[in-house]
C-alpha cells in the first residue's frame, strides 16, 4: 500500500537538469553504489532462502545427505497429519487474543487522548512490557502462573479460593488462554501508543470546534478520532493476525517447547525442522503458513475496504448532493 503512495508522488525535479550529461553518470554510479549492499542482503538472506525453501518442500531430505523428490507428499502430510494441522487451530486462540488486545488498546488510547493527569506515567507503565526480552517474559509468566504464586495470590486478595482456581498452565482447557494472555500483556501497550500517536496527529482545533458545536465525547470519538486512525487500525489488524499465526515464544519458553497441547504451528515447525530434521516437511509447513498469511492479509484488506467504504460513500454522496444544490442555485441566479 505504501509503495503505491510513493509511486504516486510527483517526480523530483531532477528531470529539469537532466541535460547535464555527467550528472546522469554520477547518478547512476551513486544509485548502484548505495543500493548494492542493501539489495544483496535482501536477496541473499530473504529471497534466496525463500526460493530454496520452496524447492525443499518437494523433497524428502535432511540437512545433509541424500534428497529424494516426493512431489506434493509433504503438502499432503501437512494437511493430513493430525498433530500438524490441529496445531494451526491453536492460532484461533491467538487471533482472539489479538482482537481483545486491539480493542483494549483502542479504548486506553481514547482515554489517554482525552487528557488525564499523569498520562505519560500510565502510558509508560503500559508500554514497557513491549521492550522486555521474550525469553525473560517467558520466565516471568512461568513464575506468574505457577500454582499458588503471583496470579493465584492476587485472585485470593479479591476473595477467590485457591481450590476453585484452575492450574493455569497444566489445565488443557485454559492453558492456551493463559499463554495468549502473555502476548496480549506484551503488545497492548505498544498498540495503544500507535493508536494514540495517530489520534494526537489530528489537529486539536477540530476537537475544539466539535466541542463548541456541542459534540459529546462519543461523537468526538466516532467522527474525529476513528476516521483519523483507520489506516493504523487496519495495519495493526494485519500485523496482529500475521503475528497470531506465527505465535512462537509464549509456548516455547513458558511451556518449555509446547507441552500439554500448547504447541502452536510454529513450535511444531521448529520441532520438525530441527529435532526430527525433516527439512522438506518443515518447508512445506512454512509455505502453507505463508499462503494462509497472504490470504488473511488480502481478505482483511478487502473487508476493511468494504467496512470503511460505506462511510466514505456517504461523503461522496453528500458532496454530490451539495454540488447539485449549488448547480440548482446557480441556475436560479442565472434565470433571474
Amino acid at each position, binding site marked *: 500500500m505504501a509503495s503505491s503512495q510513493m509511486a504516486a508522488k510527483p517526480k523530483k525535479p531532477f528531470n529539469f537538469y537532466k541535460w547535464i550529461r555527467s550528472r546522469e553518470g554520477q547518478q547512476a554510479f551513486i544509485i548502484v553504489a548505495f543500493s548494492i549492499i542493501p539489495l544483496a542482503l535482501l536477496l541473499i538472506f530473504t529471497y534466496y532462502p525463500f526460493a530454496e525453501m520452496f524447492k525443499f518442500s518437494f523433497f524428502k531430505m535432511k540437512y545433509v545427505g541424500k534428497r529424494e523428490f516426493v512431489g506434493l507428499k509433504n503438502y499432503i502430510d501437512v494437511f493430513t497429519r493430525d498433530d500438524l494441522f490441529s496445531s494451526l487451530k491453536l492460532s484461533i486462540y491467538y487471533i482472539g487474543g489479538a482482537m481483545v488486545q486491539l480493542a483494549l488498546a483502542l479504548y486506553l488510547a481514547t482515554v489517554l487522548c482525552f487528557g488525564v493527569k499523569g498520562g505519560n506515567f500510565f502510558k509508560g507503565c503500559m508500554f514497557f512490557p513491549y521492550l522486555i526480552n521474550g525469553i525473560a517474559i517467558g520466565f516471568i509468566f512461568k513464575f506468574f502462573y505457577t500454582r499458588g504464586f503471583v496470579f493465584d495470590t*492476587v485472585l485470593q486478595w479479591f476473595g477467590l479460593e485457591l481450590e476453585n482456581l484452575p492450574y493455569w498452565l497444566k489445565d488443557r482447557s485454559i492453558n492456551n488462554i493463559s499463554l495468549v494472555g502473555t502476548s496480549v500483556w506484551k503488545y497492548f501497550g505498544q498498540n495503544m501508543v500507535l493508536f494514540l500517536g495517530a489520534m494526537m496527529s489530528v489537529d486539536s482545533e477540530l476537537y475544539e470546534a466539535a466541542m463548541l458545536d456541542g459534540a459529546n465525547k462519543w461523537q468526538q470519538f466516532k467522527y474525529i478520532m476513528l476516521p483519523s486512525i483507520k489506516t493504523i487500525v487496519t495495519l495493526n489488524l494485519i500485523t496482529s493476525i500475521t503475528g497470531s499465526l506465527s505465535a512462537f515464544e509464549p509456548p516455547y519458553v513458558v511451556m518449555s517447547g509446547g507441552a500439554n497441547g500448547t504447541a502452536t504451528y510454529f513450535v511444531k515447525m521448529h520441532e520438525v525442522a530441527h529435532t526430527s530434521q525433516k527439512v522438506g516437511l518443515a518447508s512445506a509447513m512454512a509455505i502453507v503458513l505463508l499462503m494462509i498469511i497472504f490470504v488473511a492479509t488480502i481478505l482483511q484488506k478487502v473487508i476493511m475496504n468494504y467496512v470503511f467504504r460505506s462511510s466514505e460513500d456517504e461523503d461522496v454522496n453528500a458532496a454530490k448532493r451539495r454540488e447539485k444544490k449549488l448547480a440548482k442555485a446557480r441556475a436560479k441566479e442565472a434565470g433571474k
Partner: protein
Amino acid sequence: MTIFQKIKHYGWIFIQYFSLIFFSFVALLPVVSCLITAFKTKEEYETTNVMTLPQSWLNFRNFIQVWEDADMGRAFFNSAIVLVFVVAGSVMVGSMIAYVLNRFTFPGNGLIRSLFLFATLLPGIAMQVATYQLMYQIGFINHLYGYIILSMGTDVISIYIFIQFFENIPVSLDESAFMDGASYFTIFFKILFPLLKPAMVTVMILKGVGTYNEYYNASLYLTGEQKTVSMALYTFVGPLGSQFNLICAGAIMSLIPALVVFLIFQKQIYSGMTAGAVKG
C-alpha cells in the same frame, strides 16, 4: 451543570482513572512480583508467599550467583558487540538505500520498494529452514559476524523511517550543493547524513531493542562462547528448574538495559514507533 451532567462528568473521569490504574497495575504486576522474588534468599523464597516483600532489598546474592553461573558478563559483552555492529550497519544501509530511493527516479525504483515491502510479509522464522542451510554453506554459523550480517539484512522499517525523513528535507539543499561542485557522496555524507540525526536515533532504538531481545536466530547461529543475553537467559530452563529466585534475578538483570534506554528516550521511542508503523 445539572446533577445528571455532573454525575456523567465525574463518572467518566472515574472510569478514565480506574481503567488506567487497573491496566498499569496489570502491566507492572508480573515484573514487580519478579523483582520482589529476585531479592529473596532461598529459604525466604521457599517459606514466604511470593507477594511478601523480601527481608532485605540489598540482598544481591541471587544476582551475583546468576551473573557467575550463566556467565552473564560474557553474554552482555557479546550482546553489546552485536548491538553496536547491527545498529551501525542498519543505519548505514538503511539511510543509503533510502537516499537512493527517495532522491532519484530510475527504472527499478518501484521494484526495489516492492521487494522490501513484500519481504515484511514473509515471517522470518518460517524461512530459517532454508536460511540455516545457506548460513551453513557459507560458514556463517557459530561466528558473531555471521549473526550480525544476518540481523542487518532486511530491516524494512528503518528504511521507511529514513525515506519519510528524506521527504522532509528539501531537495534544493542537494541541488545547491551540487551546483557548488559537490559530488553525490559529499552531499550524502557531509550534508544530509548529519541532518538525519532524529531519524537515526529512532532507528537505533527500535533496531537496538529488537536485536537485544532477539532469541531465535541467536540460538540457531551462535553457541557457547558467543552467546547473547537472551541465550544466557534461556539456559536457565534446565538446571535451575523452579528456583525462581535465581531465574527472576536473571530476568530482571536482562531488562535493565531496556529500562534505562526507555527512561532516557521515551519520546523518541513513541514517535519512532508511530512513524515506523504508519509508513510500514
